[in-house]
């Protein structure tokens, strides 16, 4: 079983080719990191996996389903953690309501929460270590806390595939460690993880695959096969440095944000 499989996938956005001839095959369950410079099409790939963007050509299957034809079924199996800054700070939502969102969207309007839903939300908040934040306003939480809550929202519907878009952006070291542990335990419970990131240092020893994307797949495979200086320099130019400190491999792009 493949979690994500693409072949010759091309996506155009506003007249520009955002992804070109992308071919990928990710086993289920695996932990895959997607890296690449800004504008490489990493988020576009996640949105195409979700069926939010339609490819111009090529083949895509997510858990065996075509997201362009069966987007609802695909989305019912996929948890998505967007970049934190995509959420609105105009809305004073409580943390538990943010997590509940993912359970209620699958019901019919007016989508009332049952006692069972509330218990599931409590349980998931406990799993991500955010139980005591349940009644706090989401916009008042720290970056790391918000990230954990968004992960809770994504996993409360028990997905088979979890997509994370730059989960470590603006998150302190301790929270990064906690989020990494959380992702690891999810993978061990049989969930496939696809994580877009600028910095793989924290998860380098946990990931099964790494994909270097720059409109097309530059390299894909096991980290030790892909994280080669010549490959990285072909994408990032001379801005990239790789430091090895056994058993860790440090991957340091100088433009780690944006």
């Amino acid at each position, binding site marked *: 079983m493949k979690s994500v499989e693409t072949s010759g996938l091309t996506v155009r956005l506003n007249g520009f080719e955002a992804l070109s001839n992308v071919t990928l095959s990710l086993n289920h369950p695996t932990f895959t990191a997607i890296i690449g410079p800004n504008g490489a099409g990493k988020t576009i790939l996640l949105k195409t996996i*979700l069926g*939010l963007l339609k490819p111009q050509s090529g083949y895509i299957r997510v858990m065996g389903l075509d997201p362009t034809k069966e*987007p*609802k079924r695909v*989305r*019912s199996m*996929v948890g*998505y953690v*967007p970049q934190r800054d*995509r*959420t*609105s700070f*105009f*809305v*004073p*939502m*409580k943390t538990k*309501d*943010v997590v509940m*969102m*993912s359970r*209620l*969207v*699958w019901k019919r*309007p*007016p*989508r009332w929460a049952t006692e069972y839903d509330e218990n599931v939300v409590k349980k998931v908040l406990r799993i991500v270590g955010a139980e005591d934040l349940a009644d706090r*306003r989401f916009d008042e939480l720290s970056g790391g806390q918000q990230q954990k809550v*968004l992960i809770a*929202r994504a996993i409360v*519907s028990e997905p088979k595939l979890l997509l994370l878009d730059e989960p470590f952006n603006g998150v302190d070291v301790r929270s990064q460690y906690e989020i990494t542990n959380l992702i690891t335990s999810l993978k061990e419970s049989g969930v496939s993880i696809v994580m877009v990131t600028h910095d793989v240092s924290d998860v380098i020893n946990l990931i099964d695959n790494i994909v270097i994307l720059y409109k097309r797949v530059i390299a894909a495979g096991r980290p030790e096969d892909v994280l080669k200086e010549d490959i990285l320099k072909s994408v990032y130019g001379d801005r990239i440095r790789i430091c090895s400190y056994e058993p860790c491999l440090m991957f340091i792009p100088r433009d780690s944000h944006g």
Partner: protein
Amino acid sequence: MVDLLSPFLIKAYVAVLLMAATSIIGSVAVLRGVAYMPAEAAHAALGGAALGILLGYVANLTVNPYLVAAIFASITTLFAGYVGRKGGPEAIASALAGALTLGVSVYAFVRYVLPAQLRVILDGYLVGDILLLGDSDIVTLSILTMACMVIFAIFYNEIIYVCFDPEGAEAMGMNASFYDFIIFFLIGLAGSVATKTVGTLIVYALVIAPAITAKELSRSVNGMLRLTVIITLVAGYGGLALSIIFNMPSSGSIAIFASAIYVGTMLAKKLVQKQ
């Protein structure tokens, strides 16, 4: 001595209740990040009302100008929402600016054509006349307010989710575009309700000021909605009392009251934060 139970005042009391209900949609506009939209919709409604009155005058048709106003305002906000999906917040602002200009131009042209007795009716949409609402106005306003509230109640969760995280909501299987259009439609209806009750010029003060004030003081979305209703009621009835006591224009008094609550809240909050 003013008769507090005169038919004019009783209708004004009812209109304030209706305003309080539609102020919830003002909160939605704030949550969606388009706080300016109800005011722009109100200007489009002004153009619609002018056209409705003109049709009645020229073609001798029995047209309720207020219904034409509500249709104009809703089409405007839906169109702004549509272009906004293609071009972002700047496109929404541009579309609304165009609608505002069109609405005011239609108003100016129609006002020039109409005889004096109909100009007074048209000007009522510009400056508001909560004390001069007729029985049919109250019925129409009630129907439109009820429509707003029923739609809002049915799609409450969807509306809040789309305001909070449209991308995430869509990724979870919701048709975020559809619910976004529901939000814009409701804002158009609410803007037109406010146009008839307080007038185009001060819609912003009454529809948005209570919502912004409530947002500053609330810990949750439900709390914000409840507080918005309470503030609108206080501003509405407080403004009416002001206008009776000091013989001031009622709509202006209501807007002043709403704005004063906002300014007072912000000052108090700053003082508390300093301590």
